[in-house]
């Protein structure tokens, strides 16, 4: 506890006994800054993927389509029979047969706006919206097979699952990237700290000779590297946030790539990066200092 307090408050005398550490200082600043910058993007990717996975899962899971392919003279009867079945099925909030105009609009991208639907054997589509409980797709299929032979239920599972899985994978990839970045940062700071400790071996020996305790010596190094890592990470995270803020805003036209930024409280996440960077440096330098000090008498 005392050591933590001294780490936070600092000890001007202890800070002075450790000489300036030159390139290791710059390495720590640069490494933590670069890693924090990358972490912001990995975080943005992860959060955006999460949002996308949730939205896709929610939107697609709440709708289904019933397609009725029947001879023209039976189409109206089968459609009505299907709507009756759907209205009786628990878990379905609404079921609605699409009008000719709506079906024509769906086909317009492929066949143009002047498609004569009434002259073509186009299946009738029924849009199904689930309630919060959802419906039993398998049970509904069995009933439709018996009562509406021309009906085919598409609950979007077939193409919804790979999409949602892909979004979840992207989110996982983002988090793994953050872990790897944290590990790489710890490794770089450990190397920098070890270099600084090795370069100052004689200083440490003198301090031990005059009665300095390991905690005193370690804290002087740990504090220095922790502060540098924190500052480097703060600058890196700040630049990263600026970069994310300059990305194009989310839009339907731009698809997934324009939705990479943070949203709402998500903007607060990067604020955790500098303290975490400092914590990584504290643990890495502390471990390196303990190892070095144990090697001295």
């Amino acid at each position, binding site marked *: 506890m005392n050591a933590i307090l001294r780490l936070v408050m600092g000890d001007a005398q202890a800070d*002075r*006994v450790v*000489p300036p550490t030159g390139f290791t200082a710059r390495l720590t600043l640069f490494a933590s800054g670069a890693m924090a910058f990358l972490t912001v993007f990995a975080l943005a990717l992860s959060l955006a993927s999460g949002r996308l996975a949730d939205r896709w899962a929610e939107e697609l899971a709440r709708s289904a389509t019933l397609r009725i392919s029947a001879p023209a003279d039976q189409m109206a009867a089968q459609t009505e029979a299907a709507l009756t079945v759907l209205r009786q099925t628990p878990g379905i909030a609404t079921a609605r047969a699409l009008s000719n105009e709506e079906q024509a609009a769906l086909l317009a991208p492929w066949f143009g706006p002047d498609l004569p639907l009434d002259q073509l054997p186009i299946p009738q589509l029924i849009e199904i919206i689930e309630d919060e409980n959802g419906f039993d797709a398998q049970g509904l299929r069995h009933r439709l097979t018996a009562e509406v032979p021309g009906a085919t239920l598409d609950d979007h599972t077939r193409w919804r699952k790979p999409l949602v899985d892909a979004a979840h994978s992207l989110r996982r990839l983002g988090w793994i990237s953050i872990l790897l970045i944290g590990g790489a940062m710890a490794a770089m700071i450990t190397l920098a700290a070890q270099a600084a400790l090795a370069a100052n071996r004689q200083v440490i020996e*003198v301090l031990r*000779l005059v009665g300095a305790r*390991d905690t*005193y010596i370690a804290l002087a190094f740990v504090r220095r590297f922790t502060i540098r890592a924190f500052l480097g990470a703060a600058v890196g995270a700040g630049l990263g946030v600026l970069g994310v803020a300059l990305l194009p805003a989310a839009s339907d036209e731009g698809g997934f790539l324009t939705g990479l930024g943070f949203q709402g409280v998500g903007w607060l996440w990067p604020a955790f990066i500098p303290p975490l960077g400092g914590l990584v440096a504290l643990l890495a330098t502390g471990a390196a200092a303990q190892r070095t000090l*144990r090697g001295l*008498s």
Partner: protein
Amino acid sequence: MIELDQVAYSYGGGELLSDVSIRLTPGSFHFLTGPSGAGKTTFLKLCYGELRATSGQVRAFETDMRDLDRDQMAMLRRRMGVVHQDCRFLDHLPLADNVALPLTVSGRDLAQEQANLTELLSWVGLSNRASALPPELSGGERQRAALARAVIMSPDVVLADEPTGNVDWEMSQRLMQLLIELNRMGKAVLIATHDLGLIRAAKSQVQARVLRISNRRLQLAGADL
């Protein structure tokens, strides 16, 4: 205070010290002599725990050094003043800060110790060099500074390895006087030196035992001194 009991020390397959037994009691004054490479520095390092005895027991302040953890060893060293032959310093700190280093690491208020520091620097003739960095000091100045650092905490034991090797006769007598004053205050002093003249001069002022390391063993020196 410091007691070595049948201590041996080996390094690289060869035995450097064998069957060494001695007690440094409060108020005792010892000189340690012997040819170069005889093991004087090794003996001192065993006394302050920089080296661990291969066999036998080293006790400091009633504690077996093998039982001490690293923090306890640090606390023990605050009660010892050590002058290294190579006078190690922190090269980025001015001389005054180097001399005050034992006070700094033990958390003493340097402002309160300023008068002692000034007096000590004056005693060793370094008042006008207080702000100099160690690389700027001559060999003699470094030795005087090392001795000042060793005694600033008024330690119970002073262990000095050739503390007057690079200073002139007058200054060496002055430094000896400082050690003799400490000894009169009840501190144990052990000085490793080649300088037989220094030993003879000191023996006229203080009751000192002269030890010699010869053939890896510690012996009481005879009438040649």
